[in-house]
C-alpha cells in the first residue's frame, strides 16, 4: 500500500475516533450532574495520565521508525553510482539535463531554481506523487529515487511561482535495464 493510502486510512480512523468520542460525551452531557464527584475525578485523572502516556509512547515509536533511516538523502556530495539528472526550475518550465533514465539504478535529481522558488514533484504513472523537493535559487537539493517500473513520468511544480505555475510540467522516460534483463 502506498504512503498516501495509509495516511488517508489513518486520518479517517483518527477523525472518526475523535468524532465518536465527542458524540459519546455530547450524549452524556445532557444527563444531570453526578452528586458525588470525588470518584469521578479520581477516575478522570487516571484516564488522563494513561491517555497522555499512550500518546507519548506512540509518538516516540512513530518518530523513531520514520526517522531511521533518515528519509532524505545525504546532501554532502553527488552520489558516485547514481544516474545524475540536473533539474532547473524556470518561470514556467523545467530544464532537465536528461530525459531518459534506467529503471533499477538510483537516480539523483540535483534540483535548483533559476529565478524563484519552485517545487519539483515527480508523478508516477498512477498520477500519484512519488517524491518531491524544493527548487530554490542559490541552493541545490539532491533527491534520490530508484524507479522500478519503465514508462513515462511527469514533473509538476508544487511551489506557487506566478501566473504560469499550473502549466509548469515536464516528462521523462524510465527505460528497462537491458543489461540486467529486468525492469
Amino acid at each position, binding site marked *: 500500500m502506498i*504512503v498516501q493510502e495509509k495516511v488517508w486510512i489513518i486520518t479517517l480512523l483518527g477523525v472518526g475516533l475523535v468524532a465518536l468520542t465527542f458524540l459519546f460525551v455530547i450524549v*452524556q452531557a445532557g*444527563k444531570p450532574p453526578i452528586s458525588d464527584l470525588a470518584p469521578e475525578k479520581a477516575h478522570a485523572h487516571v484516564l488522563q495520565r494513561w*491517555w497522555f502516556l499512550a*500518546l507519548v509512547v506512540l509518538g516516540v515509536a512513530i*518518530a523513531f521508525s520514520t526517522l531511521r533511516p533518515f528519509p532524505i*538523502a545525504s546532501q554532502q556530495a553527488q552520489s558516485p553510482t547514481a544516474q545524475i539528472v540536473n533539474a532547473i526550475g524556470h518561470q514556467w518550465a523545467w530544464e532537465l539535463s536528461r530525459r531518459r533514465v534506467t529503471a533499477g539504478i538510483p537516480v539523483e535529481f540535483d534540483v535548483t531554481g533559476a529565478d524563484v522558488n519552485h517545487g519539483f514533484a515527480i508523478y508516477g504513472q498512477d498520477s500519484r506523487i512519488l517524491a518531491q523537493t*524544493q527548487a530554490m535559487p542559490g*541552493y541545490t537539493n539532491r533527491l534520490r529515487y530508484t524507479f522500478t517500473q519503465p514508462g513515462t513520468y511527469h514533473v509538476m511544480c508544487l511551489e506557487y511561482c506566478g*501566473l504560469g505555475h499550473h502549466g509548469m510540467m515536464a516528462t521523462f522516460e524510465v527505460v528497462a535495464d537491458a543489461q540486467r534483463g529486468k525492469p
Partner: protein
Amino acid sequence: MSAMQLYPANERLTRNERVVFNLYVISALAVLVLLMLFGLTMRMAQGAWISVPPRIFYELMTAHGAGMVGTIGLASSAVMWFFLRKYVRLNLAIFAANYVFFVLGAIAILASVFIGGFAGAWTFLYPLPVHSMTLWSGNAAALFMLGYLLIGVGFLLFYLDAMRAMIRVYGNLGRALGLRWLLGGEIDQSHPKTVVASTMVAITNSIGILAGAVVLVMCIINIYFPSLGLNALLVKNLTYLFGHMFINASIYMGVIAVYELLPRYSGKPYPMSRTFLWSWAASLVMVLIVYPHHLMMDYAMPRWMLVMGQIISYCAGLPVFTVTVYGALANVYHSGMRWRMPAKLVILSMFGWAAGIVPAIIDGTISVNEVMHNTQWVPGHFHFYLLLGVLAMVLALMYHVIGSRDERPDAAADRVGLPVYIIGGLTFVFAFLAAGHVSVPRRFAVHQLAWMPYDRIGSIGALLVITGMLVFSVRIITGLVKSPAEGDRAHAAG
C-alpha cells in the same frame, strides 16, 4: 460564584467599548464572508463550473490567504481583549488603534492586489515579489508588504499593552504565566486561564511579528535596491516563523473563549491544574521552534532542524489533546449542559481543533510530507481547524454577547444555520483532503479533468458554509446593534 454566572457584571461593555468591539466583530464578519466568496469562486473555477482567468484566480488566492489570516487574527484578538480586560486594565485607545492599523493595512493589501495586480500569495516567498514577469510592479509588491507591516504594528501595540497591563497586576510575565506553580505549591484557583493564555500569545506572537517585520523590511529594501540580494532560505525561515506563529496565535487567542464560556454553560467548575500550566509553558517554546515542518522539502536545511520540526510537531499536539480538549470534554460530561448557541459552537470548535490536527500532525512526518507537501492535503487540514475550530470559537463569543441582549439567543435560523455550516464545513475540508491524498496540487488555477469531482464537491461544501455564515452574520450583527438589556435582566440569567 462569579465564574459560573452566565453574564458576569465585570464583562459588561461600556459605551466606548461597545463601539470598538462592534467595529471589530462587524468588520470581521463582513470580510470573512467576502473572503469565503473568493474561496468559493476559486473552487468553482478549479471545477470548471465558472471561468476565471488565471491572473484573476491568483489575485483572489493572494487576497483570500492574506485576508483570512489577518481577519481571523483580528477576530480572535477581540476574544482575548473581551475576557482579559476583566482581569487587567487594558487601554481601549490601543485596542482601537489595532483596528485602525488593520483597516489601513487591509486597504493597502487590497489596493496592491486588485489595482497593482500583486499575486505573490499570502506567503510572498522571496524572490517571487521581485520576479513577477511584468505582471505587477515593485511598488505593488512593496504596498502589499507595507500593508502587512501596518497590521503587524497594530497587533504589536495590542500585545505590548496586554503585557504592560499584566505585569502591572502580576509583577512579571512569568507570574502571569503561572510558572511558580510548575514544580509545586498550591495553585491559586483564582488565577485566570485567560491571563495564562494571553501571556503566552503576547510573548510568542510579538516575537513572530518581529520576525515578520525583519523579513518584510528586508524584502522592501531589496525591491528598491536589488543589488542587496537576500538569502532565499533565510527569508523562507523567517517568513514561516512569522506565518506559523501568527496563525497559531489566533487559535490560542480564540481558545480563551472556551476556557471562559464552557463552565458557564456546563455549570461545572473548570479548575486550573498543573498540567494546564505545563502545557501552556511548553507550548510557548514549541510554537516558536516547530515552524521547520514547513520546510521539510528544503533539503538544504540543517538535518537537526528538520528532525526538530517533526518531533515538535508531534509534541505540540500533546497539550491540545491532553489538556484543552480532554479538559473540555471532562467539563461537559454529565454536566446537565445548557445547549445554547455559544455552548454548541464551543464544542464544535473543540472538535474542529482536535480532528483537524490529525491530518496536520501526520503531514508533519518527513516521509509523509515527501508525498503530501503542497497538495490539497494542506488546505484540507488547516481549513479543518480554522473553519470548524477557530472560527467557531470566535462565533461562540459573538453569540454569547448577543445572548446577553436577546430574549431568544437560539433563533430558528440558528438551529438551521449551524447544521448547514457543519455539514458544509466537513464536506469542504474532506473534499480537499480526499484530493490531497490523490496528489492534487494546491494553488493551481487550472485543474485536470480527473481532479474536478473533488473541486465540485468542495464547491458545494463552500456554498453551504457561506449560507451558514450568512445566517450567523445577520443574527450577530442584528443582535450587536440592539441596545443593551435594561437593568440587570441578562445577568439574572446566570
